[in-house]
Structures are given as C-alpha cells and as structure tokens.
C-alpha cells in the first residue's frame, strides 16, 4: 500500500494530468543556526589527594575580538561541586539557570544533611543526559564542561561532558586548547589514579597555574586574568580575579631576525 495520502484514489494521471502535490510540502526542515558566538576558551582541572583544582580564564571572545574580560566561567553549584564551562557563554548561562532550578527543587524537601544533596557525580550524570538530549535534537548546547567536586563516596571527582554528550573521566582533564597544551603537563604529575594519592593541594595548584601560563602563551583566545577553585571535603575556595605570575619574556631580547641576522 502506498502511504502517501496524495496517492490515494486520486484522479488518473493519463486523463487529468499530473497531480500537483506541491501544497502538501512543508517549506524546509527546521534548522538551528548552531555555532557558538560569544565563547570562552580552555578549562583545566586536576585531582589531588583530598580534592580537585580547576581553573579557567575570565575572557569571553567574539570571534577573535577579546570582547568581555570579566566573565566568570567557574560556576559553583553547591558546597561540593564547581563546573568549568568552555564554549558558548549564552548556553553556559542557560545551563547555570537550569542547574539553579534543579537546586531549588532539591531543597523543597527539608533535608538539611549534606549527604542528601546532589554530589558531583550525580550532577555530571544529569548534565550528560541534558547535553546528549540536545545534540539528539540537532540543537546542541555548544559547551565543553568539566565537573569538579566530591563524589557520593566522598572521593575527589573529575569528569567532562561535551556538546555531543560524550563523557570522560580522568585524574586530569582539560577542554579546548588545554586538551593539547595542558593535559601533557598535568599527566606528567598524575599519570593514573594511583598517583593522585601522592599529590598535595599545593602541587596541584602549582601545576594548574603553570598550565594557565602555557595556555596564555600559546592560545590566541586566552587572557592573563583567570579564576581558580579548590574543592575538597572542607568546602570550596574560589578566587575569581587572579593574574598570571612569573611569566617568561626576557629571552626576547636575545632573538634577532629570523635566521642569520645578528643585529
């Protein structure tokens, strides 16, 4: 049987001519102009023995224009989770509100014990479903997100989810250019989960700051003002107006020409 209604019992083509079915067609499939507009670059994070350190710079770019220099891309969810957003800033704000609504709903019950609040791994699972649903609708949220915090088992937790809903977990993670430039540096310190147990908070903070510096040197969409957060069982310390320190530029004076030139 022919399932097209326009073919059912219609006048014969050889007598009445071809049936004009053009009116039945809808204009076009729905299209979503999905590409990021105002964007944030890399987020880097690393686990240490008691928690997680996460950082991202405060820049929101508009193409190559450094348009907004005070955009805080580390968003605190509750007393045990911080999210780091790379990618589109408007979608970041949307997700921020979505999670805010989730938090409001979580607090409808009077439960005041910490154990009943959403843990970092709960939040990561939730986000991965949201991101995957949106990509399946061909309308993705254009972000790459790191979830840093404390898991339901009171262990340091670090995982990522991207615009396709793909998830990863590792002792260290980085998005965007950070995946190329920062991950190798952090991996040297924590090649595996075993190594995490030997890392102090200071070591973790130092390597993250080093990564932010390398990214500033080599990522053309980065800036030197950044935010850094440390999440542990004791709570969250977040600093949002840090400046890169101990940069190395002095060697420029020894560079002359591009090969043989000496003056």
């Amino acid at each position, binding site marked *: 049987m022919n399932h097209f209604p326009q073919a059912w019992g219609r006048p014969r083509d050889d007598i009445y001519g071809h049936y004009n079915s053009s009116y039945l067609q809808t204009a076009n499939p729905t299209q979503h102009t999905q590409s990021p*507009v*105002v964007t944030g670059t890399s987020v880097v994070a690393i686990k240490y023995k008691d928690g997680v350190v996460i950082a991202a710079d405060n820049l*929101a770019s*508009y193409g190559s*224009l450094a348009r*907004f220099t005070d955009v805080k891309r580390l968003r605190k969810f509750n007393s045990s989770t911080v999210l780091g957003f790379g990618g589109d*800033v*408007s979608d970041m*704000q*949307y997700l921020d509100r979505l999670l805010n609504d989730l938090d409001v709903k979580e607090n409808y019950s009077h439960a005041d014990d910490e154990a009943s609040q959403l843990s970092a791994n709960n939040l990561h699972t939730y986000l991965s479903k949201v991101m995957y649903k949106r990509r399946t609708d061909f309308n993705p949220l254009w972000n790459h997100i790191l979830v840093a915090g404390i898991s339901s088992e009171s262990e340091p937790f670090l995982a990522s989810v991207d615009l396709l809903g793909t998830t990863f977990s590792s002792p260290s993670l980085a998005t965007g250019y950070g995946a190329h430039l920062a991950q190798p540096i952090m991996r040297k310190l924590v090649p595996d989960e075993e190594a995490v147990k030997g890392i102090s908070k200071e070591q973790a903070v130092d390597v993250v700051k080093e990564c932010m510096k390398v990214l500033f040197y080599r990522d053309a969409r980065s800036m030197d003002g950044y935010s850094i957060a440390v999440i542990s069982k004791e709570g969250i310390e977040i600093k949002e107006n840090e400046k890169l320190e101990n940069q190395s530029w002095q060697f420029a004076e020894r560079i002359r020409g591009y090969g043989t030139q000496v003056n």
Partner: protein
Amino acid sequence: MQPTGMLGEDGIHVDMNHLKKGEVNLGTSIMAINFKDGVILGADSRTTTGAYIANRVTDKLTQVSDTIWCCRSGSAADTQAVADIVQHHLSMYAVTNDEQPTTQTAAAIFQDLCYDNKDQLSAGIIIAGYDHRHGGQVYSLPLGGSLHKQSYAIGGSGSTYIYGYCDSYWKENMTEEGGIAFVKGALSEAIKWDGSSGGVIRMVVLTAKGAVRHLYLPDQAYEGPGKQPKAV
C-alpha cells in the same frame, strides 16, 4: 539560494550576520555608560540597505519603560519587534506587581527573547536603565543571546574601531559633562572610520530626574545643539 558569508575552519557554514534579502541593517555605532548620577546612552543615526543610506536621521535609542532604554543594532525589524515586546512586558509588570520594573527585569526579558529565538534573530542590544534602588546599570546582549553586566558597553559594526579609544579614556564615576564628552568622543571616532555609521549623535541621559535627550550635529562639529526639550 547560494549561501553567503564564509566557511568556518571546521567546514561548517557560519553566517550569524546573515540578513534576509532587502532587510534593513542597523550597521551601527551604539554605546551606553555608567556615570556618577546614572547612565548615558548614545548612538549614531545611519540606517543602510547595502551601501544605500535608507535613513540618515534614525533614532536607535528606544524607550521600553520610564527610565529603562535600549540601543538597537542588527536587523531593524528584529530589534524593533523585540523592543516592542519588552515594552509590553514591562508595562504589564508595573501594573500587575504594583512596582516599577528594574533594569535587571528588562535585561532578563530581553535575554529570554534573544536567547530562545537566536536562530531567527540578528539583534545586538545594549540595555541601560536607572532605578532608585540599583542606580544606573548597563547590560550588553550580543548576538548569541548571552547577557553581560558592564561598566560601559559598546556595540554595532562601528564599535570595533573604538575599543582602544574607550579602554584608554574610560574612567569610573565621571560627571555628566565628562560622560557626555566620552560618549561623543567615542561615537565621532566610530562614525569617522565606519562606513556603516554616520549622521548625527543622539544621546539619552537617565538619572533620578528622569530621561533627557541630547542631539549633536555633524555640521556643528558635534558641539550642539545639545540638550533637547521634552516632547509634548
């Protein structure tokens, strides 16, 4: 239809600024600043269709409530429609909640519309308002629909020429005269270098005393006439 714009480096066709055929474009210079007593909005007055100047005395400063205004850039049709909807929302807000809406309220509604309909719209809007509780506030709402609270905001095609000027000359807590000079200086540079910006400079000063319009004409070297009387 042949695609316009350019291919992104990932091979995806990207053209956020795409205008429908014959659409009127506010290729523009707009800005808004905080100063000691409130906010100042400023804009040029040129509207183009391609290279033709469709209107040389456009008013891009649009009132959405008593002391909340916005500067519009992008598609004239889109931004007018959005501003009209926001104006309606704010007037309903005032009567149903027995209180004047704040600049945050206006910014939130603008963002709701621009973010939810980002696929259809090309609108870059600056929202600036004054209320007794919060004083003056400036919000920038660029193309994708993200909302940014700022000390001062610049927008439109002409703004790219004045990032340096504004960053160098910006001071917080300026006097009204200082603020007007800053806006005028920045916009006259944008008009000078941007072909899509031009004509007169319009401003609106929002303070506890209400809204006051200013006008500066190119044939008076943008010196005057200055303050405009209230419309009757």
